[in-house]
């Protein structure tokens, strides 16, 4: 009997939660996520993070705080030990291995070290991302120039990554991330290797992408950028979310 009631209450609770969350149109939902490494080290501790469609969120915290692990969880590069991760209304903790590629097609990723293919030109690097998801050659020929002009590299399409500056390389990797028009863009310290001026230009580009409707989650160490942007800031320390402010700064203002 009690068991039966417990189940009804549980069902009711999850129903309410679903209604509330659906109404808010969250694109990314992490509920009670824990991640423990095999050696027993607890990297993420009870993480609850909800991100709405169209938001721009900074993820800040010192190295080793768990930012990268959080990003890896969303890409399903590693598995959460417990908890639930829902991306675009799909519970990825229960996702089968063969559906992971489809998850990743909805998430563009940009890295600190760009991860461009050195033996391919700018155009080929971007087209590569479309070929991988088996887009038709016609679509590739149409879409790649559009995205290259968006990041301002139309004229440099046949150069190789070594011939470009750091900022330009990061633009290429942004173009590659955006060419399949994902709903989410995850940027893992995209300005980590760039000087302040170039960083600012990349941020301008990110804001533009965000204004077109892409949700952006950016992990960063750049204090001045976070302070200038006045966007939502989620701070992680020792595997916990210690602060989540809608118009925050890098450090807690005292």
């Amino acid at each position: 009997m009690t068991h039966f009631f417990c189940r009804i209450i549980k069902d009711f609770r999850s129903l309410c939660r679903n209604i509330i969350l659906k109404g808010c149109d969250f694109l990314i939902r992490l509920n009670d996520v824990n991640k423990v490494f095999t050696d027993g080290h607890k990297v993420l501790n009870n993480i609850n993070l909800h991100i709405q469609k169209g938001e721009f969120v900074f993820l800040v915290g010192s190295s080793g705080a768990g930012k990268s692990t959080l990003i890896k969880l969303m890409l399903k590069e590693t598995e959460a030990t417990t908890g639930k991760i829902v991306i675009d209304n799909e519970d990825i903790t229960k996702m089968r291995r063969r559906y992971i590629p489809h998850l990743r097609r909805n998430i563009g990723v940009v890295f600190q070290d760009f991860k461009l293919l050195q033996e391919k030109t700018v155009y080929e690097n971007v087209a590569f991302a479309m070929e991988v998801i088996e887009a038709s050659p016609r679509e590739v020929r149409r879409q790649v120039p559009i995205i290259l002009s968006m990041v301002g590299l139309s004229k440099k399409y046949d150069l190789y990554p070594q011939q470009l500056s750091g900022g330009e390389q990061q633009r290429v990797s942004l173009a590659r991330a955006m060419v399949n028009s994902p709903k989410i863009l995850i940027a893992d310290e995209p300005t980590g290797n760039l000087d302040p001026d170039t960083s600012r230009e990349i941020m301008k580009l990110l804001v533009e992408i965000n204004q077109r409707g892409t949700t952006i989650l950016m992990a960063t160490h750049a204090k001045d950028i976070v302070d200038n942007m006045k966007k939502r800031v989620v701070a992680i320390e020792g595997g916990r979310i210690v602060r989540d402010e809608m118009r925050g700064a890098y450090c807690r203002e005292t």
Partner: protein
Amino acid sequence: MSLASVTSITATLLVIGIFVMLALNFDYIATNIESQVEMKAFLVDGLGQDVIESMKKNVESLDGVKTVTFESKTQALEKFKEKFNNNSYLLEGLDDRNPLPDSLIVTMISPNNAKEISESISKMSDVENVVYGKEVLDKLLKITYALRVGCLLLIAVLLIISTFIIANTIKLTVFARRREISIMKFVGATDWFVRWPFIIEGVVIGIIGSIITVLALSSVYMYFVKTLSGSMLGIMSFTIMPFSEIVIDTTFFVTCIGIFIGFLGSVISVRKFLKV
């Protein structure tokens, strides 16, 4: 990089190919010898033509019997004389009092049935006794069986070993492209999208390796056949497999094995790098 793969796949295919050729030859020789085994049923003297005919029909109707031919006393003597060619004077004077009996010569579909057939023939009336090389035949059957099984086992073991050698060689190629693979996986490539170029590469390497192997092995075999046919084959009671037959079979087996090894090798070597 692929030169290394082709070399190692050719080396392993050569070893496997030699055993395939040996196995094919064992099989060929064994079947040859087995088909030569015949049985003789000696008949009582002085049977009428119609009795012999009906007996012949009875024997033919037995399971596992291929052909039955009647050999009369006189035919048997002629044969005997032929065998003793130079010394046929020893048999002079036997023409009037021929001691050899009439007989039925029975050939079998498979020598495995020899025992049952001989038993059922000796039960028939007017049959004096039935002979076939029992001990020799039993030994022969055992040897050919062991050789066939042995060759198959050896080829299977070689197959497993060579698959891992090839997998390790191809792994070098995959390792050189691991960055590309991880980027592919990040932008949402499926496992098969990453895998198939490597598999095609593996299969092509396998085909090239088997072409080289077949060319090398068949030219060696041709030389072998030529030298052997002149000298030794005359005194041996069997022949080795003719060139035209063995080339077709070997090409088939070696190419299949080459493709299989190349395919499996690349699947194994890509596996590790797909876990991103």
